[in-house]
């Protein structure tokens, strides 16, 4: 579903993403982790066609993103790190716009949207988006992506701003979609979520993938025999001196 080879992104002299290779199958949740500024969002932006790679090949759903970007975009769903939407539209108008621009089957999408709205307590579609809180925007963004039931879903920090109930529902929905054959590409700073939900995890630091595999494979890479993802992550990203830092503070 997602095949990436030798992906590089340079901004002038700075290399944000350096020779990243990924291979993610259908029916898999892939957790993409890394410290702030490691290159997670830049990678997602290239995979979703909003940023042109400097080098490398990206194939999504067996299509080349350079040649078939429009076709790919119509078949994937993206929840970006910030739920940015047109503030002068009402919620339901944004839904209509998304239905129109993605040419979705109205009846089926409406049925699914009703269910999602019910689940996420979305009862504010008559209001202007400009009056929404961050959480309300995030819910609407998630709803408009999931109502299309895309084959590949990219989620950049999807639980930020969501209340506990909505976050739980989202996690369960992601697992349900995985079971139905969708590919989920997920970034999060909440390592417990990644540990519990993801089938495989990739850790990026300074633009390069430093570890990749299942939880067991990652544990085997830990020289300090760490068990939890948090400890493995901190060991691999070189932030193991946290205790000393806290003591000095």
């Amino acid at each position, binding site marked *: 579903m997602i095949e990436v080879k030798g992906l590089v992104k340079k901004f002038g002299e700075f290399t944000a993403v350096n020779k990243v290779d990924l291979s993610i199958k259908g029916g898999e949740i892939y957790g993409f982790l890394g410290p702030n500024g490691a290159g997670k969002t830049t990678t997602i*932006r290239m995979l*979703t*066609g*909003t*940023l*042109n790679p400097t080098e490398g090949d990206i194939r999504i759903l067996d299509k080349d993103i350079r040649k078939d970007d*429009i*076709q790919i*975009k*119509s078949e994937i769903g*993206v929840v*970006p790190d910030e739920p*940015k*939407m*047109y*503030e*002068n*539209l009402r*919620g*339901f*108008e944004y*839904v*209509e*716009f998304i*239905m*129109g*621009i*993605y040419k979705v089957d*109205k009846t089926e999408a*409406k049925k699914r949207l009703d269910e999602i709205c019910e689940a996420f307590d*979305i*009862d*504010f*579609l*008559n*209001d*202007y988006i*400009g*009056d929404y*809180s961050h959480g309300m925007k995030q819910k609407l963004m998630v709803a408009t992506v999931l109502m299309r039931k895309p084959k590949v879903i990219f989620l950049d920090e999807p639980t930020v701003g969501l209340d506990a109930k909505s976050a739980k529902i989202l996690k369960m929905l992601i697992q349900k979609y995985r079971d139905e054959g969708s590919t989920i590409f997920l970034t999060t700073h909440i390592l417990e979520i990644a540990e519990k939900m993801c089938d495989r995890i990739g850790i990026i630091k300074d633009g390069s993938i430093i570890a990749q595999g299942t939880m067991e494979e990652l544990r085997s890479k830990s020289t300090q025999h760490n068990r939890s993802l948090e400890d493995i992550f901190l060991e691999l990203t070189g932030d193991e001196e946290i205790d000393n830092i806290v003591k000095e503070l």
Partner: protein
Amino acid sequence: MSDLSLLLKYSFKNKVRPAKNKKGVSKASKPITTVIQYLLPAVIFGMTIAPVMFITMKDLNIPMQSLGIDSSYSFLDIIFSLNFLGMGIMFFMNYSPSIIMNLYDSEMTQAFLTMPIKKSTIFWAGSIDSLLMTGLPLGMLLPIAVVYAIIMKANIFLSILAIVGFVIVLLGISMLGGILMSFFMSRTSAKRFTMFAYFGSIILYVFAANYFNPSNFNSGNVEVIAQTFKNALGFILNPVFPHTWMINSTKGNLWSLIILFGAGILLFCFTYFLSQKLDFSISGKKAKKSKKITFKTGRFPLIKKDLKLSFRDSQTLFLLIYPAVLPVIFFFAGNTKGSSLGVMSSLMFSAIAAFYAAYLAIMMLAEETKIWPVPKLYPIKTRTLVSNKVNIPFAIFMIEYILIVLLLTVISGFSFVNIISILPMGVILYYSSLLGARLFLKNPKREVKQKNFLSGKEVFELEGATMGVAFGVFFLLNFFSTVKNRPFWIFVGREWLIYLVFIGVPILLIGLTVLGIFKELKKIKVLIENWE
């Protein structure tokens, strides 16, 4: 007090982005520079309007009794009270919602609430800050009040007290209005109301300037005009209006002065009392629950969305309707007649619409960059996204111009020049829209949170190119028949020169503009490829 000055200091600092000097070092301007920048338009307006008002109104201090009307007021009182009333309403309409915007739309308000600062201090800082940005009507009102006192030869001390009292009452009413509005207005409706009020008042002002032209009020017409106003006297100088208290106080009525200050103090006390109770929770208000929503999908979702956004943003709406409204005001104000009506209309429309078409394209593109890179996720070509922003202003202004030409035909009769002018107008408008889009795409990552996202140089470039071409073409075209019928200067006896200058030059300019269109299209294509 120190909290208040601290909040204001950093609010003013935050309004101006530090400019880089030649060495690339950022140099932040001082807060006082920002204050001066905001006050400057009011000062310039005051310095311009005051002498004009004085000269045109100085002979109008004619008691109504001398015109046979039983009233203690003079003709001057009526004219000035119209100004005071109008500007007072204008000030209230601008200032009240802008307080809500300033306090409730600001991310900083929530941060301030977590700090050891009184809620009332946050409110007063927001109110003073808003006053700077929307205080233009007040700045316009002050010199007019001074001119009134000078013409009335009123007591200086009483006049100053009356003006100060009036300003206090206006501020009090508006602040209280702001607080009360916050109880039922949402953040979006407050934003929209602020902009509508602002541009609505500009259109009203232009309209009023055409209807209530000071030149109409010369002393020869006083009796006729006074008779017209006789019936309205009870309303304009009604004792419930604060400006009536000010006028009475200026004339020496101490009771009016006491009422003025009493009302002002009461309003401020009440505002202070309510400001302590504010919860700044406007964004939590909801509209009706969306139980039964019928989704309407159809063709052209992008165009529908762009049109909705354009007609909902009051600044964009203003840009869309103003070029058409202005000629219509001229049609009905009756100051211009006959063939000159067509000349004035096409000249005005072309110059304004050309610039606005470019600016609209820029503003519509800015709407996309506000949520960037989300629009890049849509399954459409970026080229489609951009071409809509060029085509929509072009199409709307073309429809407006065709309607104006039709209206002109109805009012002044058929004119071949008017009909044929649709073609060059189309070329100019399309070129302007493209130019605006290209200028924006040169730096799509520019700051778009504030409305002034073009640099001074870019505005100059845009105005020069769009208005220059429009004026060049339509000025010459419109004066062709005038010069042909009554040749002057070097055109006497040289008909070929008349054709060369008044027909040839516009055709050449249009030809160059068409070439410019192709050039801009090529540049935009490259810029789109690099836009990520």
